[in-house]
Structures are given as C-alpha cells and as structure tokens.
C-alpha cells in the first residue's frame, strides 16, 4: 500500500522516474559556465583580434581586418613570441627531467606515511600564495641572497660571475637574469609535472619492470623501452600544464628577470596602459594556437590513448 508523498517525496519520485532530467539538472550549470562564460569570452576575444586600432584617435575600429595579426610579425613582437615559446619549452623540459625521478620514487617506493609526506611536500607549495613564492625567490636569487652567499662561502663567486657574464642567459645578478626567470618558472610549475607523471607510473605494474629485466634489459634499457613509453601520457599531460602556464604567465617575468617582455606581459600591457585591445587579443590567441598544435601532436603520439 502507498501513502501520499509530501513535496520532497514527489520531487524524488519525479526524478527517479526520469533519469534524463537528473542528468539535465546536473549538467546545466557546468554547461552554462563552459558555454557562456568561457567559450563566450573566448569568442569575444577572437572577434576583438580581428579589429584594429586607429593610430591617431586610439579608438578601436570595428571592421574586419588581419592588420592586427600582421603586427604580431613585426620584429619586436616576434621577439616576444619567440622568447616566450623558448622559455616555455625549456621550462617544460627541465620540469620533466626534475619531476621524473621524484615521481618514480613516489610511485615505486613510497609507502604509507612516506606517500603522505610526498603528497604534502608536492602540494604544500601550491597552497601558499603564488606572489609570496615569487618574491621569496627574488630574495633568494638577489645579489645579496643566499645563492650568492653560498657561492662566496665555497669561494666560487668567480664561477657565478662567469655564468652571469654569459650574454643571453646572464645579467647583473640571478634575480635580474633570464636564468632567474627560468628557475622560478620551473619551481612554480613543477608540481603540475610531478603529479601526472606519478599517476602514470603508478599504473605500471612492478611485474612489467621485472619482465623487462628478466628478458635481459639492463635498468637503462628498461627505462628507455618500457618505463618511458608507459609514462609518456603522464609526461605529456604534465607538459601541457607547464607549457601553457608558462606561455600565459605575466607576473613572474615582471618580478624576476630582465625587462624583456613575454606574451602574458604584452597582453597585460596592450589591454591596460596602451589600450590596444585588438593587439592584446591577437597576442592572447598565440598561446591558444600553439597549444592547439601541441595537443594535436600529443594526440598523434598517442598521449591520450590511455585516458
């Protein structure tokens, strides 16, 4: 026998009878968020990039033109793009090299409490303010900072000076050199590389490594032929983070490094002080295009097959 349900009960019954409605209710907020807020602003940005700015009045001319994109290819702007891409590439490679052993240790050897220590160690820096970390690094890398002091104690100041004298990567001190920017980028994005690699390595059973050794492969060969191919999806997932985050960041190069501009900084300046929204938009499209190509390449390499 049944009793008449209350309002809550009637809602439950209605939802129970139509699972489609449940899915609709669950998916609508994220779909609105993604569709309207994210894609909407992306298309607004894209549209802006096809406008141009009137050089005399400084007003945006709302007519379709590729003139703004052509401006990206002036030597100054090309220089910014090239610098950013090279930096992002180097940061990604360095992060992968540093992250792999850490991730490998965590996936293969860390058990119980050490696993917790690992996660805490990786995540802890992510919980503190990004600006605090970057400013701390400015102090660490400064002329009076701990690194200079350390070289001094070891009587190796000449080595640091010699390094800083190298034209493209050097500077007056580490904190105003491209090397400094690079170090801070690697530090800040490293967790985003470690975690995906660790997740990928975690899925490789120990017997797979043992089988490779059993079939005659020395550890180096096992790494090359088994471990690396199986961890590649993780490395690529991590590199998507480090690469795109470096491409878009505009704070680190302002605080640590030379005055040379990066894409993020150019976007920030063109849309702010310069009021050149179309050029800022065109600049913002550059990382999107680069990431598009990168993802296409990664997909062809089978990086997403394991998803």
């Amino acid at each position: 026998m049944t009793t008449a349900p209350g309002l809550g009960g009637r809602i439950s019954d209605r939802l129970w009878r139509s699972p489609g409605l449940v899915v609709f209710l669950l998916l609508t907020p994220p779909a609105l968020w993604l569709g309207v807020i994210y894609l909407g602003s992306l298309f607004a940005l894209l549209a802006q990039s096809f406008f141009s700015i009137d050089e005399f009045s400084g007003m945006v001319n709302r007519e379709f033109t590729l003139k703004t994109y052509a401006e990206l290819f002036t030597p100054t702007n090309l220089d910014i793009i090239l610098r950013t891409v090279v930096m992002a590439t180097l940061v990604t490679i360095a992060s992968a090299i540093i992250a792999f052993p850490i991730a490998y240790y965590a996936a293969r050897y860390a058990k119980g409490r050490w696993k917790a220590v690992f996660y805490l160690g990786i995540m802890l820096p992510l919980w503190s303010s990004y600006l605090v970390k970057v400013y701390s690094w400015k102090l660490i890398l400064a002329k009076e900072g701990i690194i200079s002091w350390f070289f001094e104690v070891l009587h190796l100041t000449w080595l640091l000076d010699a390094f800083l004298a190298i034209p493209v990567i050097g500077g007056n001190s580490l904190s105003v050199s491209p090397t400094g920017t690079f170090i801070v980028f690697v530090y800040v994005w490293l967790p985003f590389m470690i975690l995906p690699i660790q997740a990928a390595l975690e899925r490789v059973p120990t017997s797979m490594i043992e089988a490779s050794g059993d079939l005659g492969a020395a550890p180096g060969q096992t790494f090359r032929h088994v471990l690396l191919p199986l961890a590649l999806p993780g490395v690529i997932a991590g590199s998507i983070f480090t690469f795109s985050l470096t491409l878009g960041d505009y704070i680190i190069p302002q605080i640590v490094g030379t005055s040379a501009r990066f894409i993020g900084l150019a976007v920030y300046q063109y849309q702010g002080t310069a009021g050149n929204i179309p050029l800022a938009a065109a600049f913002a499209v550059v990382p999107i295009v680069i990431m598009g190509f990168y993802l296409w390449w990664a997909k062809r390499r089978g990086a997403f097959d394991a998803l």
Partner: protein
Amino acid sequence: MTVAVSFSGVTRHFGTVRAVDGVDLDIAEGEFFAMLGPSGSGKTTCLRLIAGFEQPTGGDIRLFGQSVRDVPPYRRAVNTVFQDYALFPHLNVLDNVAYGLMIAGKGKTERYRESEAALDLVALPGYGGRKPSELSGGQRQRVALARALVNKPRVLLLDEPLGALDLKLREQMQEELKSLQRQLCITFVFVTHDQGEALSMADRVAVFNQGRIVQVGSPEDIYYRPEVPFVADFVGSSNILPPILTGLSALAAIRPEALRLTDTGTPATVTAVNFLGAATRVALDANGSRMTALLPKGAVRPTVGASVKVSWDAADLHQMKGGA
C-alpha cells in the same frame, strides 16, 4: 645428472617475516619441477630468488654450478612467465615476443623470424600484429610463454601461469606445457597452489609450508607416502590416523579409497554422506578421529548417524615421520 638449480641453506627474510627459511633443494636439468604450497608458503619467493628479483638473506643459490650471488636478473640464463603475464601494453604481440632478442641486439629480420616461430610453437601463428589488450586470457598466457621461450632459456620459471584461466583452458594448457617441456628439454620450475596441477604435470614436487620444504618427491611419493601430516592434508585429503587406531608408533596416512566399511573393524559413526557420481564419500567419526572413506559404486551406502565398522589393509597405511 647436471644440477640446474641448487639452493643451499637459502633464507629470505622480509623484516621479521621469514618468507624462505632454510631451503635446500636440487633441481636437475630437463626436469619438470613443481613448487607446491598454500599462499604465503614461500614458493613464489623461491622462484623470484632464482629469477633474481629477490636476493637471499642467507645461503647460496647456484645456477648450473655457478653462484648467482649479486648477479642481476638481466644476466641470468632464466626466463619467467609471470602470473599476470606482464605483457608490454605499448608493443604489439610480435614486438613483445621479440623484446628479449631486441635487447640482445639481434637484427630486425632475424628476431621477427624467430618470434614468428615462437608464436607458431604456442599455436598463435599470425597474431603478431595485435595488441595484448585484444587477446583473451589464454592467448596472453601463450604470448608470455613464447616471449620467454624465444630467448632459449636454460631454465623456465612459471609463476602460477594457469591460475587466471578457466578450468577447461587450464587442463588444455597443462597438456600443452607438458608436451612443450618434453619437446624442448628445458628445465621447468613451476609454482602452483593447485595440488592436482602439480601432481599431474611435474616429474618431482616440493611441498612448501611456512618458508620450508616439508617434502620433495615424485607425485606418487607425495600422494601415497606423505612424510608429514601437512602434506597428507594439503595434497589431496588423506586420512591421518593416530597410533591408537593403527598400532603404529607414529601418525599414519591412508587414502580415503583404501578405507572399507565391513562387519569387523574400528567402530565409527557416519557423520555425512555425499554422492559423487563414480563414488560415494562418507565422513566418519571414530571415537574423535575424523576420517573420510571413498566407497566405490555399488557398495552399500550407509545413512547419516549409523554405527559402522571401518577396516583397512595394513599395507595401505603409511607411517609418517615424527611422533604423534
């Protein structure tokens, strides 16, 4: 006789756990040798010690007379068929089989030719282009076998290779493994917890319990002449009779089929009767000693609770080591 694998006083401790606790063992070349025991008895650790994935805490292991102390797995002339097969998911079947030859530096044409031959051997011709994920469990098992055999190991180690297969496939693979071993004359060391598998396939069986070998012998020895109650109990369900029933000085084992229900003999109570088709299994309680009799078809079937008399031929009794 050449000794292929030799353990002398081998121990392997994990912290306070004595996984392998003083094992002495000689496995002859060309032998099909089974390591039988319940899980945690140390049989798999022994296999891993031979492969080199574990290092002994004490004692010495020799392969063909050479001590393998500090010899890494990749320098040992043994290959393993893993319990989970451990096929490389990013390589196709042919490249999986050819892996060992690729590492050994063989040219592409040569290693693919040999790998195709190995796939023929395990009855998977033409499967080289598939990915391991596209194969059934039985087929993966064969690929793992081919991948090990293509390297022409002097000893093949098999870690519960049939455990994940269904009954019919398992019986078929037992036959095939046995004939492969005869054909190739390679020493097989086979780890299993299935006594039927060990007895039907192996030339000799070592029964493990708590890190030690409790008995080594032919399947007939293990089955009919268990030396300790553990073997009698674990390998098939032998009855263990106390001296008071047999008049012997120690515990004795007797197979269920050797017990008869007769007019004279030891009084017992029937506690259960199970019809098995070809025979009837009768559980008995003789003044506190439990035993099982297997009555042939046509014998009079008792009812539960009936008082009966059990007898046996003294020749069927096998006296075990040690006191009661």
